[in-house]
């Protein structure tokens, strides 16, 4: 199975937790889950990420605000030492999603983000748990047209991206609705944390209808860095660090990509087999008759040559499919209890509802 590349882009307002999530994801997966690892290709970037993570773990130092120069990361997702997929990740400031890109003096990160969305195989929509908590407290209403989560604005970006990609014949990007800072939900809503999470997930269609649209596959993933609660978080208490679920979104992105490849390869396999059968039929026709084997030997040789190539391709594609399905089986259990929405329907215990 060749190493492909997926492009991941996070959309979320300022201080919604995008950079912290990336640190947590990297720290979790660079240590490995079920034999799978995420590594920065550049050792210096690996040191940057781990230094920042160590500062967080040792001193409670949260990452500073991201400036208008996005930071690019090239990760590789591995099984053991074998590279499975390269991941192109870029950390943008939240403000880049709400600025105009059309003016002559537009900042390059705004333009870059718009361009990048078109190439994104997976988009993470980041909802700040503090504001999700407020929304639950307000009764989880529909039609949230404004507010600090910028949902309608960010949904517009996603909607446009999905449409542009489909119109260009590209697969729709997978979508992750990331609910960060879920440790604050209980305090804000007055409900047990888990109840608040389910209240949010059950009503998410009111808040993020784009995630339930036809043609869109969405993972809903609550995450937390620790049990810090609400309050002034210039620094957090390292003793309360308790990372949950931060590795799951990237596994979803990877599995979605593998599934797209399985679908593509399955189609290719069908085409190859059809071509093989057609070529066999042609060969049979050419050999019909007593003298054809001699007079049409050049055409016959050509068909035989073609058949050999098709067989090799069938073998190769079949092998790739088998490997891909094994990967899916291995990684799927990481997502097994999370909600995945396909074409607006939640997949639950093998059925949609």
């Amino acid at each position: 199975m060749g190493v492909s590349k997926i492009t991941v882009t996070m959309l979320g307002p300022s201080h919604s937790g995008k950079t912290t999530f990336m640190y947590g994801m990297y720290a979790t997966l660079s240590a490995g889950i079920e034999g799978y690892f995420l590594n920065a290709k550049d050792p210096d970037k690996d040191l940057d990420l781990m230094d920042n993570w160590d500062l967080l773990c040792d001193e409670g130092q949260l990452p500073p605000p991201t400036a208008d120069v996005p930071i690019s990361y090239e990760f590789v997702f591995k099984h053991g030492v074998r590279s499975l997929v390269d991941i192109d990740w870029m950390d943008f400031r939240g403000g880049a999603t709400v600025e105009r890109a059309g003016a002559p003096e537009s900042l390059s990160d705004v333009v870059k983000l718009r361009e990048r969305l078109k190439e994104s195989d997976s988009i993470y929509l980041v909802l700040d748990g503090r504001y999700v908590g407020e929304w639950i407290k307000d009764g989880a209403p529909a039609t949230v047209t404004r507010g600090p989560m910028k949902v309608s604005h960010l949904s517009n970006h996603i909607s446009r991206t999905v449409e542009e990609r489909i119109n260009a014949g590209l697969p729709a990007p997978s979508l992750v609705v990331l609910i960060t800072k879920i440790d604050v939900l209980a305090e804000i809503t007055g409900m047990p944390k888990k109840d608040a999470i389910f209240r949010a997930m059950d009503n998410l269609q009111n808040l993020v209808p784009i995630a339930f649209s036809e043609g869109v596959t969405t993972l809903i993933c609550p995450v937390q860095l620790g049990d810090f609660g609400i309050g002034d978080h210039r620094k957090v208490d390292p003793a309360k660090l308790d990372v949950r679920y931060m590795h799951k979104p990237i596994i979803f992105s990877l599995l979605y990509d593998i599934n797209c490849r399985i679908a593509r390869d399955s189609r290719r396999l069908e085409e190859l087999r059809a071509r093989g059968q057609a070529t066999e039929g042609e060969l049979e026709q050419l050999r019909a008759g007593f003298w054809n084997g001699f007079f049409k030997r050049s055409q016959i040789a050509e068909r035989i040559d073609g058949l050999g190539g098709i067989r090799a391709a069938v073998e190769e594609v079949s092998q790739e499919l088998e490997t891909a399905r094994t990967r899916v089986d291995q990684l799927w259990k990481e997502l097994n209890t999370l909600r995945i929405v396909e074409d607006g329907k939640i997949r639950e215990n093998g059925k949609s509802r």
Partner: protein
Amino acid sequence: MTMWTPVVYGRTHRADRWWRALPAGISPNGWIADAVNAAVAGGRGLRWPEAVSEAAGETSRPEGSRLEGRYLLARRVNGGDGMNRANGVLMGVACYARALSQEMHTDEASRELYCFVGWWGTPQTPSDIPSFAALTENCERWAGDVYQTYFEQVWKEHPARVHTQESVPETAPWAQDDPVADGLVESPASAPEVTPPPLLGVGPAGFTSRKDEVLLYPASHAERLWDEGRRTKVPFTLVTGWDASAQALLRPVTHLCAADIHEPRTVPAPVIAQPPPPSPKPGGRKPEDKKPDADLLGQFLTEVGKVIRSLRSPAPEKNQKPGRSQGPAGHGSEGRPGRTGDLGTGKSRHVSSQGKEESSGQNFFSSQKKASPPVKAKFPEKTGDVNELDDL
């Protein structure tokens, strides 16, 4: 007298917009932005201001201390920015906002902010630029005043009302302080005549630098380099104040001072990444997967192979029945799938008999006609309970 125009980079309490003030006609995407970014580096490795360590409310700076930050001095002679106005000198400091203001230094999430405050101008003489000692001694006040001017009106303003402000040229604060009398800059007449010792990357007329390398110096060289920069007329970008050189942004820096450098040395300048060609999806294959030259060569060799084979091709066996479908058993390994393909490599290979090819192929395709998975990407059936999430 040289007029200097403030350059202010930093976000407000509410608005995640970073260019606070730029001179008229200066692009937020040009060399000035690159130079500021090299000093700011997303706040990475900036020193926490010592006057405000953990003593909340303590605003007085210890006697004799200097503003903790990274100092930038850069010159361009062909900046290429709008209105051809970017030629000139940019200098300033990147630091935590708390070092410049006790009121305006955090965002809505209480995160400490960082910033850059500097000045852009076209100095006529080296003495129009303050010495390193003068700048670091007074920067808290000089930059603090500029920070106050450009932030106080918009600090808690709604983001929709926060836009980059056009800064106006003004008399430099170091000129207002009567620099020569105050000893902030040396007067041309009193400039020392002592010839400094030779230094890597410094010639008689100031900096000598190459585009393909960055010169690294110990932190102790900052003052000397700054003074060389004041009289240098060629383009350069000097950043001082890094602790760890490995953390530094080297583009577009030509001279860099860091605490972990013990002897001056050079490193290659970073290569600017070219944007990748557009992705050819949905084939699944990326451009780098394709090998056009190899494909062409393969096709050519395949054609040559065909010609050779057609010339060598034996007459069909007399007892062979045309169109007969035969199984693979007993026909040797040549007919096995995957052994005779070589599409793309173009290697010619011997086909022992047409009968073997035909027979194995027939069964190969028909025997593998299993039902294919659906074309649309689907996840496996769920077996877990989505109402659990017990580990959260």
